[in-house]
Each structure stands twice: as C-alpha cells, then as structure tokens.
C-alpha cells in the first residue's frame, strides 16, 4: 500500500551519516511542570546518551508529550534544568536550541512547497542562496523523496508528509531529534512496516532521538531504552527487555505485553521472588516489591505463559513440578492461524492465553494449565 515504506530502509547507503548530524547528549534534572493545580510532569531525571534512541512510553495524560515539549523549548518547566551537551538550556528559547521536532500532525507549512519547507530551518540560520540546491537535494535523498520538491504538502500521502517532516527537522543538523507519536496517523499495516523503517533510519542517521508513543510495540522496535511514564512520573527506565521481564511495578508489568491478573496470597518472599497461593495452588513467582507473608497480592500472568494444557483427570505430562498450575473451565478457544487462543474461566476471573501448539480442548472442558513461572510476577494489592 505504502510504496514509500521501503524508502527509509534504502537510506542505508545514502549520503547522510554520522558526520553530518550533530550528536548530542541530553540531561534532564528534576523537571517539573505545573499548570495551576495540575502537575503534568513531576520531578523527572533522565540522561540520554549521544546517539541513543529513547522512547517515552505511557498512556495519554501521563506527561510524555509535555516532557518532549520541554526538551524542545516550547514549554518552560516550572522547576528543573535541561542540559544539552552539558550546557544549560532551560531558559534558551525554542528557536535557538537547534532541536528538531517532528510533530504528530507533521505541521508542514501548507503554503510552502516541500523544498521551501525543508529550506526553512537552514534559511533561518543564514544559509547562502548558492547552497539551497545542494541542501534540498541532500535531504530529499536522505528521506527518499527526490523529485517531489515542488509539490505542496496537501498533494502528498501521509507517509510522504511524514518523511518531509523528518527531512525538514534534520535539514539544519539538529542536536537532537524529537518525534511526537510518529505513527498515530497510520493504519495498522503501514504502522508495522514504518516502525521498522524508522528504527533503521534513526540508526543510520545516528542522531540522538526521543520518541513519544503510547504504543509499546513502537517502543520495542525503535528504542534503545524505554522510559515508562505514568501520571507525570517515570515508572521505570530500561531496555524493553528489562522492563518486560523484570517490571518494577504493576503498572509497568501491565503496560508492556499482554497479561492477566489473578488474586493471590503471599506465602513467602525472598530475593526478588516468592511463593504465592493462587486459586488453591502454590506458585513460584517473581516479586520485585517486598511484602510480608499473608499479604494480598495481584499476580500478573503473561498470555504467553502457557506451557501445557491437560484435561482434568488425564495424566499430566512431565515437568509438572516446576510449573505453576491453574485449574479452570475452558470458556472459548480460537484458532488464529499460527497460534491458538484460549480463554479460561476460573472463579470470577477470565484469563486469556496464547500458544503455538495445537490444543485438544473444547468449550466447557475442565482443564489444568501449566504455566511458566518466569512469566508470573506478583505485586502487592494496593
């Protein structure tokens, strides 16, 4: 559908490499932004290394876009400092920061051609007229929009507009590149391919980048590190892998991946792990938060935790001892082609699981599920 979806990929051999963009380090110290009684962003500390791509991930209203705008200089923090390459930038106006921004709406100037849009930034820095052609060609090559220089933004497709926005932001060799929800305007299929392309593109260009998104898959594909935010604070910072397998809080655990939540009671706790009674069975779980025995817990179980499913009464397979066991009644199974989805009702909870092995169960069967303990994480009930 989107012919250009491979375009960014092909930037591999292109002209712009590390030497052409300034690559800077960003440091945020104690950034807070209040609007009257509301606090949008609360005491944020973050360091982004030169050339690193960081994702600000969180639900709407968590403050991620506000934080991005603070880095760009379009919003002033109530407290805290912004440092780029060690230089204090907090009071520096947005138009002197040399931070490139790709807005969610792309914000292309409708009355200027693609060429004029791209030249806008360099012109503000006094680019001599003789250089116009070279710069435009370079940028158009970089984003693979050669030949479209004389078009107006309204004459371009969504994906093309995004590439113009990218090119325009990069044309003046910014120290950082900020992207606000780069994929929110695209439909699912295009989104997937664009994710990969953008990730590749950012690595090729090599600039320090911050991407704001509410979609965890965006974050997982693009970012070197992910900052999960909620209600104005950072919940956890780390690689996607870390956050997925070792979430520090229930919020992070729930936000990444697809999970079920089951109530349980803590038996014992030691060294970041513990034993929890769930639905009558004793489970081995990860438990990042310290709690006392007897504490009511919420246990997160990943959808992919299912290892075996056996009908009650038939012989269980081996390895039963190392798994967490869950009894229930099959509510529904759905064949998704390469995977099978299973809905299990146990007490009041309806839990969803996915597995790539075929399941020989039907609706109404009483079954025992064997779950991978590494995919079960318990948190105290708030």
């Amino acid at each position, binding site marked *: 559908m989107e012919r250009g979806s491979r375009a960014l990929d092909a930037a591999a051999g292109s002209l712009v490499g590390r030497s052409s963009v300034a690559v800077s380090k960003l440091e945020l110290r104690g950034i807070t932004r209040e609007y009257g009684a509301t606090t949008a962003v609360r005491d944020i500390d973050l360091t982004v290394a030169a050339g690193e791509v960081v994702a600000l991930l969180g639900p709407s209203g968590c403050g991620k876009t506000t934080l991005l705008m603070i880095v760009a200089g379009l919003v002033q923090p109530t407290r805290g400092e912004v440092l780029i390459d060690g230089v204090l930038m907090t009071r520096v106006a947005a*138009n002197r920061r040399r931070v490139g921004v790709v*807005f*969610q709406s792309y*914000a292309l100037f409708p*009355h200027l051609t693609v060429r004029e849009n791209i030249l806008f*930034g360099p012109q503000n820095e006094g680019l001599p007229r003789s250089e116009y052609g070279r710069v435009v060609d370079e940028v158009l090559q970089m984003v693979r929009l050669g030949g479209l220089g004389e078009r*107006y933004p309204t004459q371009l497709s969504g994906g093309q507009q995004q590439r113009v926005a990218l090119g*325009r932001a990069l044309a003046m060799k910014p120290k950082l590149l900020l992207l606000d929800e780069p994929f929110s305007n695209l439909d699912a299929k295009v989104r997937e391919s664009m994710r990969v392309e953008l990730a590749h593109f950012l690595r090729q260009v090599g600039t320090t980048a911050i991407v704001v998104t509410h979609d965890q898959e965006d974050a997982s594909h693009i970012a070197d590190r992910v900052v999960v935010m909620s209600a104005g604070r950072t919940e956890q910072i780390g690689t996607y892998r870390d956050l997925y397998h070792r979430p520090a809080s229930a919020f992070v655990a729930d936000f990444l991946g697809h999970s079920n939540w089951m109530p349980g009671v803590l038996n014992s706790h030691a060294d970041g792990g513990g034993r929890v009674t769930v639905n009558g069975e004793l489970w081995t779980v990860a438990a990042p938060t310290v709690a006392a025995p007897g504490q009511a817990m919420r246990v997160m179980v990943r959808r992919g935790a299912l290892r075996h499913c056996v009908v009650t009464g038939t012989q269980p397979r081996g390895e039963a001892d190392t798994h967490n066991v869950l009894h229930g009644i099959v509510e529904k199974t759905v064949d998704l082609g390469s995977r099978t989805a299973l809905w299990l009702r146990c007490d009041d909870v309806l839990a969803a699981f996915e597995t790539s092995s075929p399941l020989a169960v039907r609706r109404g069967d009483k079954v025992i599920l064997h779950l991978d303990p590494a995919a079960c994480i318990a948190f105290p009930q708030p």
Partner: protein
Amino acid sequence: MKGTATHTGMKATATRAGILGAAVLLYAIGLVAPLAVMVTSLRHYSALGVPPPGLTVGNFIEVVTEPSYRGAFGATVAMSSTVVVISALLAYPLCLYMRRTSRRVRSILLIVVIAPLLVSVVVRTLGWQLLLGPAGIIDRAIGVTVLYTNAAVLIGLVHLFLAHMVLALMSVLGGIKDDLLDAARTLGASEARIFRRIVFPLSLPGLLAGSVVVFGASTGALITPLFLGGARVDLASVEIYRAALVLFNWPLASAIAVCLLVVNYGIVQAAERLLHRRAAWVPA
C-alpha cells in the same frame, strides 16, 4: 453528503417553495426592482416640472467629465484604500493578541471592538464631533481642530469598519494551528520571521475578505464623511446624497451611484485576481 432524508414528500417541497418564494419576492421588491429603476440615471433632469422624455447618457458624461465629480471619485478610492490599510494595521496586532490570551480576555476585547459596530453611526459621529471639534479634547491638547478634515473622516471610517477587518482576520488566524508556529520556532525562526513567512501568508484570504468588506463599506459610507468632513471633504457618497436630497436631481444621483458601484466592483475583482495569482496554494 446529499440532503438528509427529512426533506422528502410533497408537503416538504411546498414548504420549501413557499419559503424560498417569499425570500425571492422580498429581494425582488427590495433590491432588484429598485436597482432596475436606476435606469433613471439615463433620463433627463429638469429643475422645473416634467423632464423631457427619452434616454440620455448626459448624466454619466457629467459625472465622468466634471472635475469635482472626478475629484470626488479619486478621493473616495484614496480614502477607502487608506481605511483598509489602517484597519489592517490595527487589526493584526489585535487579532494576534486575542489568539494567544485567555478566553476571558479574548471575549472582553472582542466585545469591546465589535460592540461599537452595533451602535448607530450617528451616535458615534456625535462622539467624534465632541472629541475632534473646536472645543474638544484634542483641540485643547494640541491646538488643532481635526474636525472637518480628511483626517477626521479617516478616523471615523476606521473606527466604523475596524470590526469587520477584525472578524475577517480572526477566523483565518484562528485556523492557523499552534503546532505550525511551534514547528517554525523549532526550526530557528524569530517571532518576526514567523509572522512574515508563516502567519501573514496564511492570513491572506482573510485579509482579502476583510479588505473587500471594508473597502466596499467605506466607499458607500455617507454619514461619517458628511458630518466629520464638512464642506471641504468631497466624497462620492456625499455627492450622491447632495444630488438626491439637496438638488433633487435623481437622475444625476443615480448616475453617480452607478459609477460608484462599477468602480467598487472593478477594484474588488482586481484585488481577488491579484491574490489568486500571488498565492497559488489558496483554494479558489
């Protein structure tokens, strides 16, 4: 999308015909017929008794050749153009400020600027006479009686029609989304440059619409030039008034009016053509 399903059936058609018919009838007797009567501009005028029958273009010739009338037309175009320019110069900062302030300030400013529009022009003229007249504040302050000069008429007209320009600019400036301006800032543009390269070009359709309204209204304005200009200021609308209600030479008055209409229309068309050539991206 095509009309909603509620407009079906005989009864609906009859109602629609009735309403439209009434409106058209109103316009026929209120606008079309009177304008048709403008054909009197082609008739003779006689100060005494019944005018001779037949048509003549004598009135038009008089309008076009008489230096006082030509002067009046020239002055009208000059005055109206100046009113447009000054209104624009005042309206831009006002609209830009309103755009970025809180809702309450915006409402207050809007009411203040528009409300006088809705008070009769004679009242406003009276106020200006008080202010600009021989015993007025301005005179006492700087010793110059502004009343009965071109400047007084200019002030009065700008005061009258500023609101039209503000309204026209407001909607177009309001349509410029903030992230366009933010994008320009992140690309290193100063506020002045943002205005020059982004805001102003994008506001051109509104500026044109406002200018057309203000220009047209200025050329047709009568009360202000009449009472703030006095004998020395001579504009086309005043000439129409004099010819019609002072000299009772209706054919002549009609001729002047028709010429005014033609001039107005011509200038508006020229301006629109100019805009569409300069700003090809504006949807026609």
